[in-house]
């Protein structure tokens, strides 16, 4: 909402600079977005009279002028303008002045044009930042010439009433009344404790007959149209508006068109009530019907576009055709042409939601629809229509017929809100007296008595005590409310166990050299193809966004690896030699589609790396992580994940619960992500880690007696896993086995092909005595026997 300061000042006398005004009105609740000066870049342009015009000696299209700028010394200025004559008073940009030029600002310098000195520049209206729309008297091409005899040497911004500041407000949607200059003037008056000078509406009503004689109105859907007022103006003269009116519109960001359209726009800006004018001769049978559009009905709106309507939309129609989309835009068929003889002013109230939906469906958001969307006060319609016809009389552009047609089946009356001074003080933490509170409420035209408050109908947001509390607080000053610390029940701030586990996971990953990544939760369904996920996989059943920003952001991920792989690819393509990343994010798993209940949001740890080691490095990270959480992991080969290397991937279990997997990305998948090196990834369920993590520790006594170490080396077939070997050692070693450590695996020279040599160091210990060889030999024998029988191990 743009508020021109000059316009504002005609309703409220306040004494503050615009900078202070912005600060003050912000603090009472109207947020300022920006401020700009009209003609803000124009400096040093003054009025001057053309004393003499001579031909330029060396250029046909240039003339040399002598200009009197009121200081007695004529200035010589060379110009190319064709429209000058001696005696004209024109805008003169002096040396050092700034004017608009092209799309920018130009500083005027002393110079020579084709050898003749020129000490300034004569300006067109465009060079002053305006158009012929704003100043219709300006020539289409050439220097602006003042119509009247104005004093010389004066700032032209003042002479042309260009000097103004426009303050742009962000109006919150609970304050439809502030989408108007009068509404902001009311806030300004309350802010400064000044009187609001509401425009006085007086009419002469010289038109013949009564509006009711010329028009009839019927509302078929009073829910969507609570009020419709029509007023008729006869003997209309459609012509350009006077300068003051054009200026006010331009300043507020509305383009002047003709007096009738300008009046409707003026009233909309001033009072916040959108208006429309119909050529009354286009209304068949002189009857306005407010109804829902018919199936298949079409209308060509004022912008020349044909619009397809549907029965949810409200239209203004006559007996035969729609003449306007209610609250959005008028129809081409009923517009006020330059030859119109009589017009009908519409000042109506429409349901905000209906207008909003209609405007959205039509893709046609207008100034009017934007205002109606906020649910306007139906009582505003009356003032607005009268204000409009008053302007008709002021401009002398028609004869206003007495009376009006006012369909207003359910009048909105002021309502009462009960409150207590104590209740408001208790909510705010203030100690205001009943009287102080009454006075503060009176600033916004709320009549309160300490128990009840009568709310003006333009404030639909005030319905409960808390709403009144805000009004009190606004004008008491939010920053005058004393800052306190609540004295309520003491509470202990802390992280939950699961939050602590998550912190531990993150910190452990960081300690192991991984950096934390954050990836988008939604991605493209094409990801499944990149990951080679089968067409019937459950992972392809996703929570999908019905109105995505594009296919790339259209499904909520069910597999967490795409984000990390994409990030690894980014690093790889930017030639970072290595990357170790982890993400703690969610996957979104619907239980059924379409959703009947919320999907399961499963927290997942995804680790990804390249250039920083191999399978055993990433597996080592997973193991170390498990250690810090005091859990034990179990690995088995996993050949069935389509995007993982079939022989370099392991499933991970805690006990018999599936935790996730770790391994190398399938080379095909790596290629799909354009990473030409080995990538490793681990995916673990954070939820399960939280379930299994334990931070409580119990001390186990340190051993008192020495251990006995036995090393064994054996030759086994290549596909025998160390897990098989270890489980035999542990099973057969008995209670005395303290630890089993793999210290060598060797394939190659001196080893039969298809075999590998595996070496273990087994440590035995008893808690109550020093072991001897006799204690250890029998279990060692059992171990070796079992290894050779079960695994065909040849002990070396």
């Amino acid at each position, binding site marked *: 909402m743009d508020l021109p300061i000059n316009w504002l000042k005609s309703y409220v006398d306040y004494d503050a600079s615009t900078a202070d005004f912005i600060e003050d009105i912000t603090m009472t609740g109207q947020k300022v977005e920006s401020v700009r000066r009209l003609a803000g870049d124009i400096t040093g342009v003054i009025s001057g009279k053309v004393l003499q015009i001579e031909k330029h000696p060396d250029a046909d299209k240039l003339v040399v002028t002598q200009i009197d700028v009121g200081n007695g010394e004529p200035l010589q200025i060379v110009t190319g303008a064709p429209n000058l004559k001696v005696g004209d008073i024109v805008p003169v940009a002096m040396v050092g002045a700034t004017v608009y030029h092209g799309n920018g600002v130009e500083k005027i310098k002393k110079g020579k044009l084709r050898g003749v000195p020129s000490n300034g520049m004569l300006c067109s209206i465009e060079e002053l930042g305006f158009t012929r729309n704003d100043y219709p008297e300006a020539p289409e091409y050439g220097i602006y010439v003042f119509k009247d005899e104005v004093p010389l040497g004066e700032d032209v911004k003042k002479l042309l009433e260009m000097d103004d500041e426009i303050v742009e407000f962000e109006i919150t949607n609970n304050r439809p009344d502030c989408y108007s200059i009068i509404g902001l003037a009311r806030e300004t008056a309350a802010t400064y404790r000044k009187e609001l000078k509401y425009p006085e509406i007086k009419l002469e009503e010289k038109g013949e007959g009564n509006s009711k004689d010329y028009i009839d109105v019927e509302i078929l859907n009073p829910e969507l149209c609570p009020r419709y007022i029509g007023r008729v103006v006869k003997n209309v003269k459609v012509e350009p508006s006077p300068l003051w009116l054009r200026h006010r519109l331009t300043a507020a960001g509305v383009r002047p068109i003709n007096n009738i359209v300008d009046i409707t726009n003026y009233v909309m800006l001033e009072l916040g009530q959108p208006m429309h004018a119909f050529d009354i001769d286009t209304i068949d049978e002189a009857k306005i019907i407010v109804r829902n559009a018919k199936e298949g009905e079409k209308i060509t709106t004022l912008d020349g576009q044909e619009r397809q309507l549907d029965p949810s939309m409200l239209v203004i129609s006559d007996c035969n055709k729609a003449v306007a989309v209610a609250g959005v835009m008028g129809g081409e068929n009923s517009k006020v042409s330059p030859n119109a003889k009589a017009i009908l002013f519409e000042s109506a109230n429409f349901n905000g939601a209906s207008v909003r939906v209609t405007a959205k469906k039509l893709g046609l958001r207008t100034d009017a629809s934007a205002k109606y969307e906020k649910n306007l006060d139906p009582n505003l319609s009356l003032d607005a229509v009268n204000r409009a016809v008053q302007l008709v009389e002021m401009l002398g552009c028609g004869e206003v017929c007495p009376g009006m047609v006012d369909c207003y089946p359910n009048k909105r009356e002021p309502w009462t809100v009960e409150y207590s001074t104590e209740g408001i003080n208790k909510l705010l933490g203030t100690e205001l007296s009943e009287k102080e509170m009454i006075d503060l409420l009176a600033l916004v035209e709320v009549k309160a008595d300490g128990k009840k408050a009568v709310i003006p109908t333009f404030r639909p947001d005030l319905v409960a005590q808390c709403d009144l509390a805000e009004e009190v607080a606004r004008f008491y000053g*939010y920053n005058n409310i004393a800052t306190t*610390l609540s004295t309520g029940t003491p509470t202990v701030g802390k992280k939950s166990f699961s939050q602590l586990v998550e912190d531990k996971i993150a910190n452990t990953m960081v300690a192991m*050299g991984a950096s934390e990544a954050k990836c988008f939760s*939604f991605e493209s369904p094409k990801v499944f193809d990149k990951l080679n996920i089968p067409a019937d996989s459950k992972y392809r059943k996703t929570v999908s966004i019905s109105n995505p920003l594009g296919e790339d952001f259209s499904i909520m991920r069910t597999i967490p690896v795409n984000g990390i792989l994409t990030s690894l690819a980014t690093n790889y393509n930017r030639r970072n030699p290595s990357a170790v990343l982890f993400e703690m994010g969610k996957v979104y798993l619907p239980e059924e589609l*379409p*959703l009947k209940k*919320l999907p399961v949001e499963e927290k997942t740890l995804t680790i990804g790396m390249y250039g920083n080691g191999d399978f055993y490095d990433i597996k080592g990270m997973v193991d170390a992580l498990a250690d810090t959480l005091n859990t034990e992991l179990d690995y088995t080969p996993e050949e069935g994940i389509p995007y993982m290397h079939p022989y370099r991937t392991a499933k991970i279990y805690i006990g018999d619960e599936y935790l996730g997997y770790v391994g190398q990305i399938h080379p095909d998948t790596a290629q799909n992500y354009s990473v030409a090196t080995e990538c490793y990834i681990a995916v673990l369920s954070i939820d399960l880690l939280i379930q299994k993590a334990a931070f409580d520790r119990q001390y186990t006594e340190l051993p008192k007696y020495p251990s006995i170490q036995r090393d064994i080396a054996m030759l086994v077939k290549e596909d025998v896993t160390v897990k098989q070997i270890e489980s035999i050692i542990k099973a057969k070693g008995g209670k005395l086995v303290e630890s089993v450590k793999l210290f060598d695996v060797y394939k190659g020279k001196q080893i039969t092909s298809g075999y590998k040599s595996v070496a273990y160091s087994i440590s035995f210990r008893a808690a109550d005595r020093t072991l001897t060889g006799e204690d250890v030999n029998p279990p060692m024998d059992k171990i070796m026997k079992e290894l050779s029988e079960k695994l065909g191990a040849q002990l070396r």
Partner: protein
Amino acid sequence: MKEKLNQIREKALKRLEETKNMDNLEALRVELLGKKGELTQILKAMGSLSKEERPIIGQYANEVRGQIEAKLEAVKADFAKKLKQEKLNAEKIDVTMPGKKKSIGHLHPMTKVIEDIKQIFIGMGYEIVEGPEVETAYYNFEALNIPKDHPARDEQDTFYVNGEGDFLLRTQTSPMQIRTMETHELPIKIIAPGRVYRSDEVDATHSPIFHQLEGMVIDKNITMGDLKGALAVFAKQLFGKDAKVRFRPHHFPFTEPSAEMDVSCFACGGKGCRVCKDSGWIEVLGCGMVHPEVLKRCNIDPEKYSGFAFGLGLERIAMQKYSISDLRLLYENDTRFLEQF
């Protein structure tokens, strides 16, 4: 004899003095003090001395032996010291060469900012709660006084998802107010950080996925003064003790009165600059007193209880704190970016 002993001593001391290394020293010891050594020979020859002379010479010979031995030890110690020194010299390294650094990873800047804020509120007695990102319209809108057709629904550019009924991606963390009030015992003092979604195209300052943090306190006798107090403490903790705050009236459907909190511009300290658009203030969060209708909907009696709530966008705070100019960097995960935090 005595003279002989003196000669032996002088010779021995001289030779010891001249010894070049540890190996020679041992040979010399044997030569001087061993069984075949001159001194031993003399002691052996003591039998030929008179009774009176014997103890005198014997004592003297022992003295001489003692002196030689002492010298021997001294020279030995000297050698050992030298040897140690030589070893140390040989071990000299260039300490300015780089260490074998264990590379430590880095938390994401968003995580760091969220953690900073969590710690501030934990210190003030708040709990941390979390909730779903795929939400129902009830929690995201209706329960927060935003009925169907309310213009605020349009303003928030909601992503809807495939469901029977109104399932959507939450546009704010405010649903956590409702979820907490429904499940927690009173009094409530929580913060709820998390991801939220709005249909904004990705650019330097917009992202369809971003983070918010919701906070809420519900107890008896909570006032707007308490709201100001809590948030002023928070702002000073987060932005430094010189940070000033101001509260401006604003509108949120689920709080009344509502406010926005500005903090004095960190770039210029409040004088006015490009960062704060010459106002001296930066908008940080929205807040207000929890609307009685919202309390009622969660079965909390607004006659007995009151509370305040606040919500802040975290990306902007991270960007300001770390001078990050482009939001997209936060989701690219370039290690050269992440390693700066």
